[in-house]
């Protein structure tokens, strides 16, 4: 008989070594998240997957599941905090959904919709982040970076290239390209890299694709993000 914990009253089975979010998603139960990806080691930075385990808050992507845990996720309190975190992500960057080609395929946007975010609430930072269009096939629009580090992990752990890195500390943390010039064109980044398709927002974009997929046929036009409980499905379709 498998081990279980309860998530919002539902019994969730898990295998030893699984985190709470892994077991929950496998059981078809959505916990909001941005920096978590089932193919990579957890980063635990976005904190959207925060749940209460036996009354104490913790990131469900780093917390191992254990027998008998009482986990709460879909509570007004937690969703309010998730909404605030999402709003902060929106104001830290320049997220102009109306003209963003990732609109409809963007996990940040879809998560905001899921959480019922009606405005950005906080003052915008309006950072000045020039694009890197140096690569012939890919564009980097740093305005939309949420520092999830998925590209860093994919390039390092899967592609073996270390094209991307997070530099700086705290509020000054930023995504950089690992080249003396700082330009993507001066790396060995390639369209076939895992890092080329892992970005949950609109930073790493294949050039000249833009709005080729019409409204109505985009990932989250078809169903909301919580219906994609298996995260891999989102990556493939997006």
């Amino acid at each position, binding site marked *: 008989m498998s081990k279980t914990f309860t998530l919002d009253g539902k019994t969730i089975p898990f295998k030893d070594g699984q985190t709470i979010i892994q077991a929950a998603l496998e059981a078809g139960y959505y916990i909001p998240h941005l920096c978590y990806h089932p193919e990579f080691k957890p980063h635990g930075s976005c904190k959207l997957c925060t749940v209460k385990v036996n009354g104490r808050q913790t990131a469900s992507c780093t917390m191992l599941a254990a027998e008998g845990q009482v986990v709460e996720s879909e509570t007004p309190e937690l969703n309010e905090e998730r909404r605030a975190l999402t709003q902060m992500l929106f104001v830290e960057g320049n997220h102009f959904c109306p003209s963003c080609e990732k609109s409809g395929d963007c996990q940040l946007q879809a998560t905001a919709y899921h959480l019922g975010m009606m405005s950005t609430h906080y003052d915008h930072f309006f950072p000045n982040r020039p*694009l890197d269009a*140096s690569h012939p096939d890919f564009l980097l629009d740093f305005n939309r970076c949420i520092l999830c580090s998925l590209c860093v992990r994919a390039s390092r752990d899967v592609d073996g290239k270390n094209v991307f890195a997070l530099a700086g500390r705290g509020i000054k943390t930023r995504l950089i390209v690992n080249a003396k010039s700082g330009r993507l064109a001066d790396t060995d980044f390639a369209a076939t890299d895992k890092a080329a398709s892992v970005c949950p927002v609109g930073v790493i974009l294949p050039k*000249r*694709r*833009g709005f*080729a997929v019409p*409204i109505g046929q985009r990932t989250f036009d078809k169903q909301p993000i919580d219906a994609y409980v298996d995260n891999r499905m989102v990556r493939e379709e997006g």
Partner: protein
Amino acid sequence: MSTLETAEHPEKLRRVAIDPVSRVEGHGKVTILLDDNNKVHQVRLHIVEFRGFEKFIQGRPYWEVPVMAPRLCGICPVSHHLAAAKAMDMIIGAERLTPTAEKIRRLMHYGQIMQSHALHFFHLCSPDLLFGFSSEVARRNIVGVAAEYPDIARQGVLLRKFGQEVIRITAGKRIHGTGAIPGGVNKALTREERDTLLADVYQMIAWSRDAVHLVRRLFEQNLEEYNAFGRFRAHQLSLVRADGAMDLYHGGLRARSMDGDILFDHFDYRHYWDVIFEDVKSWSYMKFPFLRSLGPERGWYRVGPLTRVANCDFIPTPFADKERCEFLAFDDGRAAGATLGFHWARMIEMLHAVECIKDLLHDDDILGDDLVTSGERAGRGVGVIEAPRGTLIHHYRVDENDLVIRANLIVSTTHNNQAMNEAVRQVAIQYLDGHEVTEALLNHIEVAIRAFDPCLSCATHALGKMPLEVELVDAEGSVVSRLAKSSDGSFSA
């Protein structure tokens, strides 16, 4: 050009300001300088807001522009969408689109023409025309029209709705869609979508014909006033097809002098700067385009429905062409030179657009799947289209990394800047000279502005209540009298 642009001794004059007049998604104002005998010495329509799109498009990837640029406007975003897409066609070397792509874009454009013209005429202007410019302000709005002329109001709403549906089906959304992409479109029509539109299109044609006849009746009933209202002479500019036909999506530039002579014809718009230049004046953020050959003083011109209907040789759809011939012949051609003739011409264009939609819906190319083409990459893209309000020019330079490095947009309202100023000046002379400032007077000025550009009047009637303030200020700067209309429609002294 009227001599009322700049008074010789403004310091001695009283200033009347209409501030704000609503403008293209923003604010404009009219200022009038009067002497002690209320003689008009200076009238200006100022566009006082700065948008900056040309600047913040810079640095963005070119394929984003057809979606970003339409955010300029919520009324005719499709026009900006298509003008930008046409410019980007040049960038990627798509010299000739696939039949499906061009026809889907045309369908989208005719849907835009239809909904914008219907909105402008029925929702925004019909209250002035049906009730009179000085009629009771409380009913001078679309709700008043719905109460007194329910069939007209209903037809207006449903005509616009049909146009919006055409846009939704071709662009993905009724406002700010994404259908046109560099080199083509991202979707064609399904049979179900086509059949949905076909079910209603003949009713739309019938109602559009009724709308043309309604304006004609209004002209007949108010012949002298309509012909004289804000009348001025202007050169004209529009796109025409190679055979001289009206073509709102593509063609060459034709300029005609105020005397009817062709100044240039079938000019390749990809070099528009050889024939058009923009002047700048210190009192307005809007530039003043002019025909280079005539210079800034004499070279200003008028664009839009009235110009297009008169400037083409024929309209290539039967009902609209018949109406065009009758319009041009009406009262020995005088209506075709009247500022309020814009409304008549606009309804003829709406009829033409619906006829084009009908023809396209019967063309199986709109169901095709060959959507995109490309060719040799270029660094400069120019897209020109006839937007509902007139000729719209998008011009971009794109660097080798695919980022926009320069953008220049000349929108319809800009082309009509001087023309609108002239119309406002004529109305001020006709109706203001020697009179006290009243709401009805203000509305006469707005009626003249509205004839050109519903973007200027949309804030007026979208809510039904445009906030306005008029002040009479003496030579020492003291306010002599003041009349304000608040956003809730109430008046205060």
